[in-house]
């Protein structure tokens, strides 16, 4: 964690109250996550459904309330900040959502949705400047400025996601948190949107938190990656190093399960996987122990802490590697 980290999250905890079959439970969705985002960096968060990766992103922008830890944006405590401080942060930390169908208001034009953050914060001097900036932003994401007058139903999935990105970059933020931004898109459109995000990152010098379940997408776009499992980070490091030489048994099984587009490298029947434990019955000790080929007795008792391996910003939470 160096001085030029633009975002510094420490020991973040988020829990939800859930009612199941008449009983109340508390689910610890995020259980002590620390991560730092350097200026201009893309940090990937990868993991399977329910691992807490989306909740981390939502807690950072304030869409869910954290109940522990700290979030510092440019050195300023964001959780303790007053209304004004938080508003300034909201304009600088923006979010792109997964489902371009659900995340755009169907009754507002694309232009109004894109201008919304600017409207709320009064950044446009007059109507003319507003429409000029909307047009410019639409052009930047590869949409014809005439789209400003259209409604979401008139757009294809890829176009909607471009509009969703446009909304997140007007006015230009410091950080974009993208939660599965290409998962709902077809592969050919997915490639176009990924390229767009890589271009914007360079042009606007954005820092990005890129949340995805897809290691292919993560490998494409992120500089560093954290792997999450049941609310905790199990491995962290440079994307190349982690994906080429995964150390944590969970990361290994995740990578081994990717269906490679090569019929000569078939994995069916060759690898064994099992179901993850229920979030309601969090095991004591390491949450991965029940599925882990390396598990020892200690794993069932002690929760492994994330410890640095000393090289290459690599860190690992495992007793046996």
């Amino acid at each position, binding site marked *: 964690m160096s001085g030029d980290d633009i975002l510094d999250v420490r020991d973040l905890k988020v829990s939800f109250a859930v009612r199941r079959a008449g009983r109340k439970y508390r689910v610890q969705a995020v259980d002590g996550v620390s991560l730092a985002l350097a200026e201009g960096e893309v940090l990937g968060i990868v993991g*399977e*459904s329910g691992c807490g990766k989306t909740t981390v992103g939502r807690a950072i922008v304030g869409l869910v309330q954290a109940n522990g830890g700290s979030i510092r944006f440019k050195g300023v405590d964001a959780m303790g900040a007053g209304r004004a401080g938080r508003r300034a942060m909201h304009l600088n930390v923006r979010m792109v959502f997964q489902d371009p169908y659900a995340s755009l208001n169907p009754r507002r034009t694309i232009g109004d949705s894109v201008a919304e953050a600017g409207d709320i914060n009064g950044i446009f001097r007059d109507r003319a400047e507003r429409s000029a900036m909307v047009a410019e932003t639409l052009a930047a994401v590869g949409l014809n400025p005439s789209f400003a007058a259209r409604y979401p139903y008139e757009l*294809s*999935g*890829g176009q909607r996601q471009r509009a969703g990105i446009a909304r997140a970059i007007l006015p230009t933020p410091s950080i974009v948190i993208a939660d599965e931004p290409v998962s709902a898109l*077809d*592969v*050919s*459109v*997915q*490639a*176009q949107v*990924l*390229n767009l995000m*890589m271009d914007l990152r360079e042009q606007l010098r954005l820092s990005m938190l890129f949340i995805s*379940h*897809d*290691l*292919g*997408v*993560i*490998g*494409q*776009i992120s*500089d560093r990656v954290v792997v999450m499992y049941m609310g905790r980070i199990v491995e962290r490091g440079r*994307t*190349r190093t982690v*994906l*080429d030489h995964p150390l944590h048994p969970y990361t290994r*099984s*995740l*990578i081994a*399960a*990717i*269906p*490679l*587009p*090569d*019929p*000569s490298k*078939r*994995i*069916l*029947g060759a*690898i064994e*996987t099992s*179901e*993850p434990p229920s979030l309601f019955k969090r095991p004591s000790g390491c949450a991965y122990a029940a599925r882990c080929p390396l598990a020892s007795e200690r794993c069932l008792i002690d929760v492994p802490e994330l410890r640095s391996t000393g090289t290459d910003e690599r860190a690992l939470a495992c007793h046996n590697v």
Partner: protein
Amino acid sequence: MLTVRDLTVSSGSATEPVDIVAGVSFGVAKGEILGLVGESGCGKSMTSLAIMGLLPQPGPRVRAGRVELDGRDVTQLQPWQRVEAGHGRMAMIFQEPMTSLNPVRRIGDQIVEAVRVHDDVSAAAARARELLELVRMPDPEMQLAAYPHQLSGGQRQRVMIAIALACRPQVLIADEPTTALDVTIQVQILGLLRELCGRLEMAILFITHDMGVIAQLADRVAVMYAGRIVETAAVDAVFGSPRHHYTRGLMDCMPSRNAGARRLPTVSGQPPAPGTIRAGCVFAPRCGAAREQCHVMTLSRVEVSRGHEVLCAFPLNGGEPA
């Protein structure tokens, strides 16, 4: 086992039909998995619904072509007519098992219901248990009493497969059954389908948008674009040496965990909407290698090598333009 000939599914009026699926032909043999791959809106799900006789009504209809199950024409038969005529041994599983299962009925009852349609009523409960064992459901006896919400996504998909197997199908159509699942669960379900295909000697038509899944699972591949099959071949041939420019484009634009921050090649533009398709090759407007005649000429399928057919006038050769 399953033969589809020149299947054309159209919406719109009888005088001005709009073809959603246009002249699709393929066959799937016993013990074989045919992967049908394509992007949203290419007509792959319409093809499967037409084969099952499950096209929404009112809605698109089969305008031309035939669907044959084990040599018998079932094209115009409704599902119940097929069961009555003894041609009902075709089943389908869908992407989201939660929407296919009844949330307020126990798993066991739902399987029994499917068994009773086809089988002796008295042995139905035993058969339901047997089916859950067949799909390798952990703890089958206990799960019979469970409700769908108590199961994980992977387990629900196993239940769907069990229900599909109740009719002892000769043909199983799987429409994106693993798309909603995590990768570690996806390999389990794919492995199960592979195993069942051989053990029960079914013909499986596996529909997906994921070239990776196709490479892992299928014996043969049919690539669909804008309602047409543009390339068919054995899986090794398609991945080793794709002949259609669209197939090549689909493979190139897949993000790879080994690539690292580089721009992905893309297929520019978007597929044509049904009804806007004019003369010439359907892919020509997006094809990097399109020549003038591609936009006007009528294409027919060419067999470029044994069992490898392509709908292109200037197919790739060894992955490169001819």
